[in-house]
């Protein structure tokens, strides 16, 4: 099983090669992969294997990372959806993408995406889930941005990626936290820690992290805005993303985590609240949309809200309803999207209002398929959507808390869905512009949507076929779930009544909206729309970045130096006074007069260097400083040092003098404020250094090095000058480095001088 997932990835990398071999038939060849998986999964299911099946292969034990596959009802359900619909999508795309540029890349990424999705639902290890999770993000990024020459595709892809990546990060945090609380990284074992987790102080953070992760992926409020934009993707991708894959990942997550984190008030409130808001927003926006893909996208958001709410409510019925609705939604939504693509190709527009009038006459087949799916979408009998909707109404009616609110929301949604049904059928296929021709298209492209639509009808007529599968899945979500049977007809119960009511209200809503130019003025809300907030954030971050970079990276060297020196001064100074404090060794106070005068000389010459207005004089007095210091060295028993000091000083100054006459003579002075500020830093640094030295020399130093060198420099190293012996023997490596510096400096100076010798620098 692990191998089957891996083989999908390998297949993806073979795509360029296959494309060369097969050319236009590529998609059909590739479709064999999902088909095989579908059949394999189906075989598992039908052959009565005992679920769950698990397999694992250690990937990295340091991270508790395993490539573990866990096939239970839930993952089986999702796996079947992904592979089944995936198969159809390939077929569809085979026709749809025939003449599109770079379709080789497209199929490669699509295959990767499918592999990642499969991996995600089958994986049983926290980390490997995350791996696949992010892989779906990035592949969907590439898919959405396939038409990247248009601005909108780039924008949408980027947005989608950022939002889902945000979720990924939240998920990562949640993952690590769960790992820390339970020390368990296998998802299927995590439900054993349900109590530990839900009673832990970190429960709320974990819940929030996981929820935010899932919310972003399945486009829940306030992260829903990326999904409508994502329709910039080629239509097969939209169909796949919206129906069975990407957005369902979040739902899958809620299902998976119901037994782990669910069952608490927090869980219920968070999920159902967010789900509810999302449902309503999605439905309203969908109804208002004219662009058919946008309409479908918003309806997806709404549907996802429904599922979120279902798993939020978390009762036995709710779980079951949610599970069933996943299948129903996958079937009708993939159909509708595929049809949207076909209509787009044939009419040349995505706008419903611009479709040719009386389209149903020109494209009867299309009309038929859309009707089949749309009826399921609106929950009309005898389609599978109806079965699902009945269960959902059942769920809200029997919700343990806030039942009335749920019912109201559910009703609103149903009303809007019915209205949208009319938009998709009546408005799209009868109204529109006059005398517009449609392009002809290979009729085989209808195969895929027709299959999904018909499947919806078949499942609607014989829902019991799915009873086992959905019950199995639900039992993995809700522990102690008892097998339920699906039926088309439950009798005239409250659910059915509500359903009827919604059909009536929805029909009314649609026809009223046709007559009345019904504009809700919500403009004042615009700035608060999440998509706007995303834009503000996007721009705001950049503006903030620019601001802080302007402040920090001013380009002025003097500022840099000042900040650097100030930081050094402040931090060191603080540490010194906080940790060490001042102490002075009184023995060090014995000073010879002539030392004092030497000190004074240094002081004066230094001051002169500091304040003279002539550069060359400053240099000269610098030599005085140097010589005076070397006298001090000499006096303190360091003749080598004294000589070297002379020499280096003289050489530096020589080089300085050599170039000085080429520099402008003008001498710049500091501004008054600068003087004050720089003086402050300078005096501070000087003072600090002095105090540190006072403190440092408070105690005598017992250097064992000194004694060792004294003993060994003549006897073992054959030299009487200990300093030189240290340089060329004891610490010869330092000297090696030192001469390297000299060599580099010399070559560097040479290059500096000669590289652009007779050229102006520009």
């Amino acid at each position, binding site marked *: 099983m692990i191998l089957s997932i891996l083989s999908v990835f390998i297949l993806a990398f073979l795509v360029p090669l296959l494309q060369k071999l097969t050319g236009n038939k590529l998609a059909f060849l590739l479709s064999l992969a999902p088909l095989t998986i579908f059949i394999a999964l189906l075989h598992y299911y039908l052959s009565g294997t005992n679920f769950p099946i698990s397999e694992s292969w250690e990937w990295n034990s340091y991270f508790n990372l395993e490539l573990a596959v866990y096939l239970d009802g839930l993952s089986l359900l999702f796996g079947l959806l992904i592979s089944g619909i995936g198969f159809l999508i390939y077929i569809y795309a085979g026709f749809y993408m025939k003449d599109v540029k770079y379709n080789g890349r497209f199929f490669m990424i699509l295959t990767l995406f499918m592999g990642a999705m499969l991996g995600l639902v089958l994986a049983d290890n926290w980390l490997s889930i995350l791996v696949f999770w992010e892989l779906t993000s990035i592949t969907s990024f590439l898919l959405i941005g396939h038409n990247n020459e248009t601005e909108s595709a780039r924008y949408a892809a980027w947005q989608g990626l950022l939002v889902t990546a945000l979720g990924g990060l939240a998920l990562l945090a949640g993952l690590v936290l769960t790992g820390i609380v339970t020390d368990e990284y296998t998802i299927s074992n995590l439900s054993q820690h349900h109590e530990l987790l839900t009673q832990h102080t970190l429960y709320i953070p974990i819940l929030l992290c996981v929820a935010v992760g899932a919310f972003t992926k399945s486009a829940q409020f306030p992260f829903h805005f990326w999904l409508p934009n994502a329709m910039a993707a080629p239509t097969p991708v939209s169909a796949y993303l919206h129906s069975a894959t990407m957005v369902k990942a979040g739902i899958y997550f809620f299902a998976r985590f119901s037994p782990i984190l669910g069952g608490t008030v927090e869980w219920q409130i968070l999920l159902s609240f967010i789900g509810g808001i999302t449902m309503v927003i999605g439905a309203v926006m969908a109804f208002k949309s004219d662009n058919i893909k946008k309409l479908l996208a918003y309806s997806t958001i709404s549907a996802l809200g429904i599922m979120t709410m279902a798993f939020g409510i978390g009762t036995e019925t709710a779980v079951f309803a949610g599970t069933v609705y996943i299948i129903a939604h996958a079937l009708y939504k993939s159909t509708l999207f595929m049809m949207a693509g076909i209509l787009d190709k044939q009419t040349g527009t995505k706008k419903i209002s611009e479709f040719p009038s009386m389209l149903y006459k020109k494209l009867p087949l299309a009309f038929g398929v859309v009707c089949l799916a749309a009826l399921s979408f609106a929950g009309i009998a005898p389609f599978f959507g109806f079965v699902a909707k009945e269960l959902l109404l059942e769920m809200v009616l029997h919700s343990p808390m806030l039942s009335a609110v749920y019912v109201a929301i559910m009703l609103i949604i149903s009303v809007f869905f019915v209205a949208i049904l009319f938009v998709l059928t009546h408005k799209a296929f009868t109204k529109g512009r006059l005398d517009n021709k449609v392009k002809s298209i290979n009729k085989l492209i209808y195969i895929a949507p027709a299959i999904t639509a018909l499947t919806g009808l078949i499942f609607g007529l014989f829902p019991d076929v799915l009873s086992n599968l959905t019950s199995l899945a639900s039992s993995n979500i809700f522990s102690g779930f008892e097998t339920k049977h699906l039926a088309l007809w439950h009798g005239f119960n409250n659910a059915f009544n509500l359903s009827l009511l919604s059909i009536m209200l929805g029909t009314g809503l649609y026809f009223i909206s046709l007559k009345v130019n019904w504009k809700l003025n919500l403009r004042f809300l615009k700035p608060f729309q999440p998509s706007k907030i995303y834009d503000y954030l996007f721009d705001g971050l950049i503006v903030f970045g620019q601001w802080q970079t302007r402040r920090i990276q001013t380009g002025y060297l003097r500022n840099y130096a000042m900040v650097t020196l100030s930081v050094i001064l402040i931090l060191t100074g603080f540490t010194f006074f906080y940790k060490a404090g001042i102490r002075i060794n009184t023995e060090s106070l014995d000073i010879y007069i002539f030392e004092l005068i030497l000190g004074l000389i240094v002081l004066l010459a230094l001051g002169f260097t500091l304040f003279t207005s002539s550069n060359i004089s400053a240099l000269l007095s610098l030599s005085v400083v140097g010589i005076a210091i070397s006298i001090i060295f000499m006096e303190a028993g360091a003749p080598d040092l004294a000589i070297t000091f002379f020499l280096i000083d003289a050489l530096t100054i020589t080089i300085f003098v050599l170039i000085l006459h080429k520099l402008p003579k003008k001498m710049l002075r500091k501004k008054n404020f600068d003087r004050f500020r720089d003086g402050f830093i*300078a005096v501070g640094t000087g003072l600090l250094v002095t105090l540190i030295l006072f403190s440092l020399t408070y105690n005598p130093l017992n250097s064992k090095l000194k004694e060792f060198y004294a003993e060994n420099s003549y006897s073992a190293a054959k030299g009487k000058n200990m300093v030189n012996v240290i340089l060329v023997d004891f610490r010869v490596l330092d000297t090696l480095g030192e001469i390297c510096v000299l060599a580099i400096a010399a070559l560097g100076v040479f290059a500096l001088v000669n590289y652009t010798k007779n050229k102006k620098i520009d």
Partner: protein
Amino acid sequence: MEFLLSILVGLLFAAGVYLLLHRDFVKLVIGIVIIGNATALFIFVAGRIVRENAPFIQEDGLPPENFADPVPQALILTALVIGFGIQAFALILFKKVYDIPKVEKIDDLKK
């Protein structure tokens, strides 16, 4: 002696830092030189000071009494030489920078 030198090191540091913050290239380089000298003296003082004898082995193969610690001296020598390399490079570099049109002071180096 250590007392005096500590103050001297502080002075050198103060002067060096003050010059490092200058708008004039030449002063900047002088600042670099002074800081270099200051750090050398710092190590010297940190290694404690012995006024009496240089660290040479005498004729009899024994060190003199109360001789200066050779280690800081060796360190300073290395550091000084390295510093020289860097100072020399910096000097020529600054000279080259003057060759850039319209660059006369440090503040002209923006971007």
